[in-house]
């Protein structure tokens, strides 16, 4: 069984040989550890993810970062430059394509060829493995901001080697967060091992004096996941990463929609992560937060999309997120043009600029929501450790098997899939079916009462239809999904 223990030098290097052999670009000179370290040491501060985040946190600024990636290097550079210049993005991404995410490098190679022929991207991201480390460095040199790989790759070992050797100073993902929402049948033992490797690589760099930022993917399925569940996963991944020597961690959270719940989530995400890192003896890890603009279905209308993008930006600012992943007005349709992407960025920048000096004031409502999240996270983490007999990696594997950790709407077969969420009358995400979540009766009653209360108000049942209505709601312009009957009545307040 997998254990949460720092990989030995020996084990790491043995694995490394195999990893680098997975595709031809793995054997490039740039991937020699010494070369990679030298290159990473040469990256100027303004392109160094960890430094830029640290400074933003000190200044209380919420930075903006889009998603973006296309098949060909030149076009990818053009895209990133556009987003920095016309979108005023503070941080740059390179979203990796879905073939690379599934390690299907030869499919990606075909698509690159075809993209060259057709002069347009047939991939939904940048195939960094096929292009190799020097290409990544070319990208970094062409821009003036830090670059991060964003993907959803269960086995991202080769990808991570390549991007870091190419000078990209941040990497998104984790053994849980890039498995459960992004895979169907890969075991958690495997992905946790993959990401121990990736984190160990970052740990090695850290020992050589190079701080690489790591970011667990917060929102998971992005679909009505209660904050305590995403928080617990983020904290577990932060702890696992810290064990391998990671020193800069950005924990993430996707907008749920109720402002109080969202701010409570952002504040507890930071405090709980910091608390647990210290509790387990990881003293010198720098923690920052990332807020994801609404990760569920978007409305078709571009102006309405701009509305939710801007609202999300307000929440990120009020909650003090260090950075924010932005969406575009094309979200419901497809990968955005660079122009649409920049529009989302600029609206976001406007709002974070206006609210730079403002935070959500403390209130009883906020305090109550924070307490609820804390209690739930504590319960989930306790049960995970307990089932792992004190080992967090083992505990994670067993917790998912037992449904103690359970992510709504995940495609993965190793996820129990018994938890069902729905919104209460104020739009907070609550839980309707708990499956095996280890919550006490008090917590369960709180959730159930909140949902019953909404059901009463709407004269309906607490059932799966409520969940479905809530899934559709935002794309229809509301947070709380009214049943068809209520909807018709409410949409037309004017008789």
């Amino acid at each position, binding site marked *: 069984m997998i254990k949460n223990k720092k990989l030995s030098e020996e084990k790491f290097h043995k694995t490394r040989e195999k990893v680098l052999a997975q595709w031809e670009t793995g054997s490039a000179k740039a991937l020699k550890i010494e070369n990679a370290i030298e290159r990473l040491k040469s990256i100027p501060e303004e392109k160094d993810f960890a430094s830029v985040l640290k400074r933003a946190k000190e200044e209380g600024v919420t930075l903006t970062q889009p998603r973006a990636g296309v098949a060909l290097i030149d076009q990818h550079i053009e895209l990133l430059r556009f987003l920095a210049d016309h979108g005023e993005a503070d941080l740059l991404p390179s979203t990796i394509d*879905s073939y690379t995410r599934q390690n299907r490098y030869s499919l990606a190679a075909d698509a690159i060829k075809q993209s060259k022929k057709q002069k347009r991207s*047939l991939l*939904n991201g940048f195939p960094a493995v096929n292009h190799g480390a020097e290409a990544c460095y070319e990208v970094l040199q062409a821009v003036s901001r830090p670059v991060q790989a964003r993907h959803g790759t269960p086995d991202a070992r080769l990808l991570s080697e390549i991007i870091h050797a190419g000078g990209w100073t941040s990497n998104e993902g984790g053994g849980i967060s890039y498995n459960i929402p992004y895979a169907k049948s890969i075991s958690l033992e495997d992905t946790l091992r993959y990401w121990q490797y990736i984190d160990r690589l970052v740990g090695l760099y850290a020992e050589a004096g190079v701080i690489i930022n790591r970011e667990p993917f917060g929102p998971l*399925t992005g679909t009505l996941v209660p904050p305590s569940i995403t928080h617990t996963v983020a904290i577990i991944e932060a702890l696992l990463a810290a064990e391998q020597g990671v020193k800069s961690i950005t924990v993430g959270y996707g907008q749920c929609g109720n402002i109080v719940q969202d701010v409570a989530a952002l504040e507890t995400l930071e405090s709980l992560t910091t608390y647990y890192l210290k509790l387990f003896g990881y003293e010198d890890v720098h923690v920052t937060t990332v807020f994801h603009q609404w990760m569920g*279905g978007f409305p078709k209308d571009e102006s309405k999309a701009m509305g939710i993008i801007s609202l999300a930006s307000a929440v990120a600012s009020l909650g003090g997120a260090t950075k924010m992943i932005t969406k575009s007005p094309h979200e*419901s349709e*497809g990968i*955005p043009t660079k122009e649409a992407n920049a529009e989302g960025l600029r609206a976001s920048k406007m709002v974070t600029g206006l609210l730079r000096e403002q935070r959500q004031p403390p209130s009883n409502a906020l305090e109550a929501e924070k307490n609820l999240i804390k209690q739930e996270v504590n319960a989930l983490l306790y049960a995970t450790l307990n089932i792992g007999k004190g080992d967090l990696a083992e505990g994670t594997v067993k917790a998912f098997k037992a449904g103690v950790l359970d992510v709504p*709407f995940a495609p993965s077969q190793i996820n129990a899939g018994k938890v069902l969420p729905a919104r209460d009358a104020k739009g907070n995400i609550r839980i309707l079916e708990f499956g095996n979540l280890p919550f006490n009766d008090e917590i369960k009653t709180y959730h159930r009462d909140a949902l019953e209360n909404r059901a009463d108000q709407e004269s309906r049942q607490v059932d799966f239809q409520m969940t479905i209505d809530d*899934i559709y709601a935002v794309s229809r312009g509301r947070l709380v999904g009214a049943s068809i009957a209520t909807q018709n009545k409410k949409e037309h307040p004017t008789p």
Partner: protein
Amino acid sequence: MHTVVIGVIGADVHAVGNKIIEHVLTEKGFDVVNIGVLSSQEDFINAAIETDAEAILVSSLYGHGEMDCKYFKENCVEAGLSHVKLYVGGNIVVGKQDFKEVEQRFKKMGFDRVYPPGADIEQAAEDLKGDLSK
């Protein structure tokens, strides 16, 4: 009762729509065989053969749909499924494109019905009933 196969094609993991489609079609009285996300053309075809299905509803959300669906119709015909209705929906191409054109492209590829982003699945269920009663 009509049997239909649903699933999400290619390296695509978008699971939410798929779960809702299963729920709605079942409620509407279909016998739904859901092969889930990350399904290959082969997975779809095998499921249709095994369950003697009358229609295959392909979802593609992530943008590689056009590549993943190449020769799907031809492969169906080859497998003796030329009578099986082929639907496709989701965000089936990369980026925001003119849907009329996209529809044309997929119809040429042999799909009987092609749905735009966020298409109403209740409506599709009606279409299906109509098509299968012919």
